[in-house]
C-alpha cells in the first residue's frame, strides 16, 4: 500500500528534524574527521600542514595497527557470538518459566542499566589477581590468573565484561521474538512428533532469524564502537597491546596522545570497515533471513 501526500514538501518537512540531527551530529563531524585525516597539526591548532596521504601510509606501515585490527576481529567475533548465544539460551529458558517470570526477566535486563565504565570496574575488581574473588577461586583451581601479564586472559576479561553488558539487550529482543512465535506452530510440530530440539532448530530458530540478524548487526557495531569504556576501565589496552582494539587506539592516539591527524585517519578507516561489514551482512546474511 502506498501513501500519497497532497503537498510535495510535507514528507521532506517531516523528515527534516531527523535529517538535521543526522547532519549536525553525524555528517558534519564525520566530514571533519575526513578532512583532518589529511593534515598534521599541533594540539592547539596553531599550525596546520597538509600532508596528503601521509597519515594513512604511516598507519598501514605500522605493525601495531594491523595488530589492533586483528585484536578487534577476535574481540568483536567473541563478543557478538558469545552475546548472541548466551542471550538466546537465557531467553529460551526465561520463556519457559511459569512462576515469577517477571522477576527473572527483570534481573536479566539489569546489567544493561549499568554504565560501561562501571561494568568494567566491576569485572576488574572480581578478577584482580591479588584481591579479586574470581581470580582467587581460579588460583585455588590451579589457574594462574594474572591478566596484567597474560594477554589471553586480559582478552578473556574484556570479552566477558563487554558481553555481560550486551546480553541483557539481546535477551530482551530474543524474548520478545520468542513470545511472538505462534504457539499453534509449535504445538502442530509437537503433534507431528517433533522433539524439543527439532522444534527449536526447525521452527523457533528460523522464525527468530529477523531478530537474530538485527542483533548481529547491532552487536558487531557495539563491539566495534561502544566497548571503549569497558576496555579503558579494565586493561587500558594492555598487557602489551593485547586488548588494544581499533576504537581504543583512536581514543589513545587522539585524546591521550593528541595526534589528531593519525586519529582522524584511523576513524576514517574504521568508518570504512564498519560500512563494508554492514554491506556484507545485508547482502549475504540477510538472504538467509526469513521474514
Amino acid at each position, binding site marked *: 500500500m502506498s501513501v500519497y501526500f497532497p503537498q510535495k514538501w510535507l514528507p521532506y518537512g517531516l523528515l527534516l528534524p531527523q535529517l538535521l540531527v543526522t547532519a549536525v551530529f553525524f555528517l558534519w563531524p564525520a566530514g571533519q574527521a575526513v578532512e583532518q585525516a589529511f593534515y*598534521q*597539526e*599541533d*594540539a*592547539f*591548532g*596553531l*599550525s596546520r*600542514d597538509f600532508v596528503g596521504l601521509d597519515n594513512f601510509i604511516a598507519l598501514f606501515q605500522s605493525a601495531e595497527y594491523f595488530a589492533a585490527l586483528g585484536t578487534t576481529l577476535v574481540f568483536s567475533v567473541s563478543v557478538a557470538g558469545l552475546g548472541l548465544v548466551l542471550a538466546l539460551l537465557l531467553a529460551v529458558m526465561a520463556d519457559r518459566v511459569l512462576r515469577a517470570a517477571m522477576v527473572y526477566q527483570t534481573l536479566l535486563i539489569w546489567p544493561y542499566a549499568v554504565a560501561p565504565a562501571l561494568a568494567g570496574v566491576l569485572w576488574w575488581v572480581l578478577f*584482580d*589477581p*591479588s*584481591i579479586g574473588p574470581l581470580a582467587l577461586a581460579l588460583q585455588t583451581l590451579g589457574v594462574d590468573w594474572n591478566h*596484567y*601479564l*597474560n*594477554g589471553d586472559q586480559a582478552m578473556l576479561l574484556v570479552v566477558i565484561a563487554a558481553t555481560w553488558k550486551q546480553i541483557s539487550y539481546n535477551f530482551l529482543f530474543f524474548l520478545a521474538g520468542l513470545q511472538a512465535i505462534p504457539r499453534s506452530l509449535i504445538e502442530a510440530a509437537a503433534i507431528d512428533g517433533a522433539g524439543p530440539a527439532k522444534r527449536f532448530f526447525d521452527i523457533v530458530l528460523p522464525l527468530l532469524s529477523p531478530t537474530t540478524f538485527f542483533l548481529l548487526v547491532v552487536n558487531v557495531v557495539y563491539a566495534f564502537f561502544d566497548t571503549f569504556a569497558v576496555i579503558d576501565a579494565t586493561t*587500558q*589496552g*594492555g*598487557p*602489551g*597491546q593485547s586488548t588494544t582494539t581499533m576504537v581504543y587506539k583512536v581514543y*589513545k*592516539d587522539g*585524546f*591521550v*596522545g*593528541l*595526534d589528531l591527524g593519525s586519529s582522524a585517519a584511523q576513524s576514517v578507516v574504521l568508518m570504512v570497515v564498519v560500512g563494508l561489514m554492514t554491506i556484507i551482512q545485508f547482502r549475504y546474511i540477510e538472504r538467509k533471513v526469513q521474514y
Partner: protein
Amino acid sequence: MGKFALVSLAVGLATSSSVMAATQIEWWHAMGGANGEKVDEIAATFNAAQDDYEVKPVFKGNYTETMTSAIAAFRAKQQPALVQVFEVGTASMMAAEGAIYPVYQLMQDTDQAFDQDDYLSAVTGYYTDNNGNMLSLPFNSSTPVLYYNKEQFEQAGVSVPRTWQELGDVAQTLVENGVECGFTTAWQSWIQLENFSARHDLPFASKANGFAGLDTELQFNSPAQVAHIEQMRAWQQDGVFSYGGRRSDSASKFYSQECAMHMESSAGYAGVKRNADFDFGVAQLPYNDELIDTPQNTIIGGASLWVLQGKSEAEYEAVAAFLSFLSQADVQADWHQFSGYLPITEAAYELTAEQGFYEANPGTDVAVKQMTAVTPTEHSKGLRLGNFVQIRDIINEELEAVWAGDKTAQVALDAAVERGNALLRKFEKAND
C-alpha cells in the same frame, strides 16, 4: 531610623557593585574526591580574602580529560584562564607558544612580587625553560618512594634497603620467610626507567632529556638501564618481584600483604595509611651504588597550572593574584599536609616542619628530603618529551613483554626507544 535605612542601602549598593565588579576567572582542574573539595576550599578562601577577583574552580575529569577539554576549548576560543596539566603534557604545552602565557612573564607584566628563588628548584625545574624561567606553577607534585611492611620486615629480621643490591637481598630473604613476593611497583615507566635514570644521573633522552631541543632522542636502552630491567625480569621469574599493572593497581598487592615492598608516588601516602592494616614505613627510592656514590634527586610527577592566552588584562591580574596566593607558605603548607603532595616553596616546607607535622606523621618528609638533598643535574631536572603520553604507553607495552618472559630487556628497550623516537620525530615535525 530613616537615616539608618539609607546608610544600609548605600552600603548594600556598594557591596553589590563591588561584587559585580569582581573579575571572574575559571580554573579547570583534575582533582576529584577529597582533593577536589580542598581545591574548592582554597578558591573560596581566596575569594573571601579580597573583593577584586573571583576564582571559579571547575572539575573536568582526569588529567587527560582536563587537558583535552582545555585544548578543545582553546580551539573554540572558550578557554579557561588557568588549567591544571599533568607533567607529561608539559612538552605539548610548552611547544604551543601562542597558546600559553608563561607564569614568570605574567608575574612581571602584572607587577606581582615574584621571586623564583623562593621555590624549590627540584620541583619547579621540571617546568622551567632553558634560562630557568618558570613557565607554569607547580601545584601538585609528587615523587616515587619506597613503602614497606614493617611487620613483615621484623618477622624476616631484615632492615630497610638503601641500595638496589640490598633490596634484592632483602626481598629474597622475605620470600624465603614465607612472604609471597618481595616487592612490586606502580607506574613502571616513571619509577623504573625515568626515575632510575635520574637517580643515577643517566640521560633518559639526549639534549638534556629534551630540555635543549625538539630533536631529542631516547637513550634509556643504555647498559645501566638494560641491566636494571634484566635484573627485574629475573626477579619476576623468581617471584621476588611481582608486576601489578600499569598505573597504581599494584597497591592492592601491598595492601593485601602479598608483597612486602611497594614503589609508589609519595602522594600515595594517604591511600596506604587508609588501606594498610599493618605498620608501614616510608624510605627513599633505592639506588645502585656501583653506578653512583651519592644518588641524585628523583624527578617529579603530578601537575602544574598553566595560564592560557586570549584573556583580558583584568583577568590576568586576577590569575597573577591567585598564583601569588597559592604560593603563600600557609596555603602551600596546608595543601601539602592535606594531600601528601610536595610543598613548592622552601617556606612551606619549613612551616610544616615547625608545625610538627613530620614528627606526627613519620615518613611524610622522605620525599622532600629525597628531592632536595642534592642540586638537580640536567638528567634529574625532569623530562621534556613530545607525545610523551604515548611513549609511556609504548614503554608499558614493552616492559610487560619483559615481565611475561617474551622479550629480553635489551630487545624490549631497543624496541621502545625505536618506536618512541618515531613519535618524537612526529612531534618535532608538527611543532617546528
